[in-house]
């Protein structure tokens, strides 16, 4: 019991009152959040993410924001105190590329992937040129389509992730990706930045019968869409000032959505995993004059210098290349493939050495467990643990353009914290507490997954009440 956390509350009376309130209050039914949202983690090692580590520090959290952090902080009387002895507080971890909350649509795979695609007709309409806008829906926003009942949200949160970039799937311009926090009562509570990045895929969508049917066709298409969007921005301003002089411009929501993104210097995510793709991405980013971030980055060890020279950040996929599970055991493997598989985890260290800003993303890993395991491989391949933490926190926030509000432990930042009983990348380390927007989640080892943000159950004590009850027992 010693290593369990404790409430050192001001008085037994107060504790009892609070527990009673929690069980009874409507808030309890609003999910696993931590009303009253006043917490102090004391006596903990605090990794602020901004370079400093406080060996015995306090973090005070209230109303969704970090109020104070430091070694000598006065804990406000209304705060619930969590003994952080033996624990480490990190900024809430960010997974910089997921589809959390956006479960795959049925049949979404058919047009873009699948080996037999050349013989099968693509689903949906057949594009006969760029004007048909194949695989293009940049007006879609992930925030509008969040399914908060996606079970993976809780599993990611329990692993210490408080935040994710969630990217719509399907097509060349699938839609705007959203930065979400991984807790809330309603989907709107999750959203940190609705229009955060514009992801691009260069996978041909045409399936032989439709445009584009080749990588070069996809690139040509994206180029034409940027041309059209730039044209729209220019033409529309002329037209609006001269509505009686010109025929009206045709309505095209693709042009409008992308013109807005270009105007706002929105981050554009370009796929680039191997060295050839990375150099191509750098070139296209220049040509298209976009605020680009490359994603993939696993062969960055070959071209880190070139990336650094362009000052373009990289989201590094933690799904390291592996031999296909069902690969023919007798099939010839090239040295280049073998080297790539061997060296991919060395990419982050190489990027760091060259001065490239990078963040990690799970990149389709099925569970959060592998995220840390695979990040550890990057550390084993030369990345410092400090930079690995930054790649999940402050650097990820900076690349996604939300470092003004999250990514580090500092007053005024969103109260996203990950509290562990050891080093983040140690296999034996357990995540003990997670704060998302100041909502407190106690992580029970091997506890069955509980429904997050379940606002519908209002009969009987919810999971929070159970947890609080067990907390109270420990405190007694």
């Amino acid at each position, binding site marked *: 019991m010693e290593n369990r956390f404790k409430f050192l509350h001001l008085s037994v009376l107060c504790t009892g009152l609070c527990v009673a309130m929690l069980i009874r209050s409507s808030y309890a039914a609003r999910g696993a959040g931590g009303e009253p949202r006043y917490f102090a983690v004391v006596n903990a090692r605090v990794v602020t993410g901004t370079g400093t580590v406080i060996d015995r520090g306090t973090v005070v959290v209230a109303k969704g924001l970090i109020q104070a952090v430091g070694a000598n902080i006065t804990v406000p009387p209304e705060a619930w105190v969590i003994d952080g002895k033996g624990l480490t507080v990190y900024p809430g971890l960010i997974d910089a590329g997921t589809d959390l909350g956006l479960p795959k649509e049925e049949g979404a795979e058919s047009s873009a992937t699948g080996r037999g695609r050349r013989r099968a007709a693509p689903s949906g309409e057949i594009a*006969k040129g*760029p004007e048909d806008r194949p695989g293009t829906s940049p007006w879609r926003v992930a925030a509008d389509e969040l399914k908060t009942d996606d079970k993976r949200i809780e599993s990611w949160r329990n692993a210490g992730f408080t935040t994710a970039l969630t990217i719509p799937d399907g097509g060349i311009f699938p839609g705007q990706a959203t930065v979400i926090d991984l807790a809330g009562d309603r989907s709107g509570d999750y959203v940190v930045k609705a229009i955060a990045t514009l992801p691009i895929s260069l996978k041909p969508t045409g399936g032989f019968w439709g445009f584009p*049917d080749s990588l070069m*066709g996809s690139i*040509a298409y994206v180029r034409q869409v940027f041309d059209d969007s730039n044209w729209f921005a220019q033409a529309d301003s002329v037209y609006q000032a001269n509505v009686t002089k010109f025929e009206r411009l045709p309505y095209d929501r693709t042009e409008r959505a992308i013109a807005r993104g270009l105007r706002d210097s929105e981050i554009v995510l370009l796929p680039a995993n191997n060295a050839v793709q990375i150099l191509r991405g750098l070139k296209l980013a220049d040509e298209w004059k976009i605020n680009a971030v490359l994603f993939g980055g696993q062969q960055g060890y070959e071209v880190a210098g070139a990336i650094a020279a362009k000052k373009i950040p990289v989201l590094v996929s933690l799904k390291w290349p592996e*031999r296909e599970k069902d690969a023919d055991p007798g099939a010839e493997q090239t*040295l*280049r493939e073998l080297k790539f598989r061997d060296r991919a985890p060395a990419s982050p260290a190489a990027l760091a050495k060259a001065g490239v800003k990078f963040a990690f993303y799970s990149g389709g890993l099925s569970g959060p467990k592998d995220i840390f395991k695979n990040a550890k491989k990057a550390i084993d391949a030369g990345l410092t643990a400090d930079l690995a933490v930054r790649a999940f926190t402050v650097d990820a926030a900076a690349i996604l353009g939300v470092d003004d509000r999250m990514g580090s432990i500092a007053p005024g930042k969103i109260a996203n914290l990950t509290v562990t009983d050891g080093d983040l990348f140690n296999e034996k380390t357990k995540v003990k507490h997670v704060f998302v927007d100041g909502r407190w989640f106690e992580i029970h080892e091997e506890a069955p997954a509980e429904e997050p943000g379940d606002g519908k159950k209002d009969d009987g004590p919810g999971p929070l009440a159970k947890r609080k009850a067990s907390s109270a027992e420990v405190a007694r």
Partner: protein
Amino acid sequence: MRLRVLTAVALLATVTPVCVRAQVSSARTDNAILIEDATLLTVTHGNIEHGSILIRDGKIAAVGADLKAPEGATVIDAKGQYVMPGIIDCHSHIAVDGSVNEGSVSVSSMANIADVLNPDDMSIYDDLAGGVTTANILHGSANAIGGQTVVIKLRWGKQASDLPFQGALPGIKFALGENPKRSNFTPPPGVAPRYPATRLGVEETIREAFIQAREYKKQWADYNEKKGTGEQNLLPPRRDEKLEPLVEVLDGKRYIHSHCYRADEILMLIRVANEFGFKIRTFQHVLEGYKVADEIAASGAGGSTFSDWWAYKMEAFDAIPYNAALMTERGVVVSINSDDAEEARHLNQEAAKSIKYGGLSANDALKLITLNPAIQLGIDSRVGSIDVGKDADLAIFNRDPLSVYAVVQKTLIDGQVYFDRQRDIDGRPALEKEKQDLLAKEKKASEEKKASKKTEAKPEKKPDQKKKRAPTNQDSAAGSAGVAP
């Protein structure tokens, strides 16, 4: 300048089934190189026995019988060997990431091969080993007007941006005949077949595209003119990535390389070109070119053909191996191309066939893969012969390259050795070891992973809990097929 030492992986399938790698020195040296005591096949001014070539700064600085190596020069002793200009392949599809066809539309001129160059394609190295130094990388022939094309030097080990032949005009692929009319021949239910389906339609597609391009060019000219006079509130035309390359064709800034077979379609394209006032740079394949060689010569187009492929489809039935020789006799600038990564490894032999079929001189046969394709690609002032001032792109063979026994010893581009047969052979054991080490490392890691999973795993179900069932025919069939039970 040291650009990037890319670990180059070379697969020489014919020599060894394993992966080998050639370490390409990307260091460009200003030091002189002297290739000494070889038979020089200059192509432009005869053969020089016991000749030497001095290379400085990647260019041929001197050619002659009695050159002395300057101090500090690297000497390549080529005694008894043959040096020819680096081979130029006027029709290649190597070094491309993804499909070479944007076949979904009949005019795919927005697609650009230059966007998808892949410097890691092993075929670059394989073709270097055949003495090829320059290749015209073409879009496929799925559509009447295909994508934009690019001439590259086979600078193996460099980045994509280092491949293009600086100064070579870009091109565009056209295609006539069966391929553009037959592509998308039987679409699945619910998908309309792609227009065109006839040779008439191919012509109409090209004509329509140029009508649009002409109109597009005029739109921009009008806009720029008005803008030039200071007129305000102008609505700009849209940029059109499909039409801009065609405007470049009209302006003579982009070469047309047109796939074709039959005489009638060749004449058709010449008529369309005359109507719109553009030039055809090369007819590719052009297997019936011998029937209309005078017309091709008069149009100023070159002919880039195969040595002796024919009858592999209806429109290739009238092809003859005398085509290259006959077109040459009628004044067409003719090249022999590969259209294939493997064929490109022995273009010297392909050229030699025109000596047998049509009686070309040895020098004219060599021209088919050196000076003539250089002329066709507009780069003959830079490459295509062994002349002072030209790029030091050279292939060194152990015998006369027109012999079937000739094997490339070294291939140089810009005075750098990009392929060295001996270095390749010497490097193979080390590469094989590196590969085996990596395989062993991977195997070990996967075994450790399995072992750790076993210890973590929950106790497995006892065998007696497994559902038993009687063996069936399928089981025995699986057994007989060697499938593990």
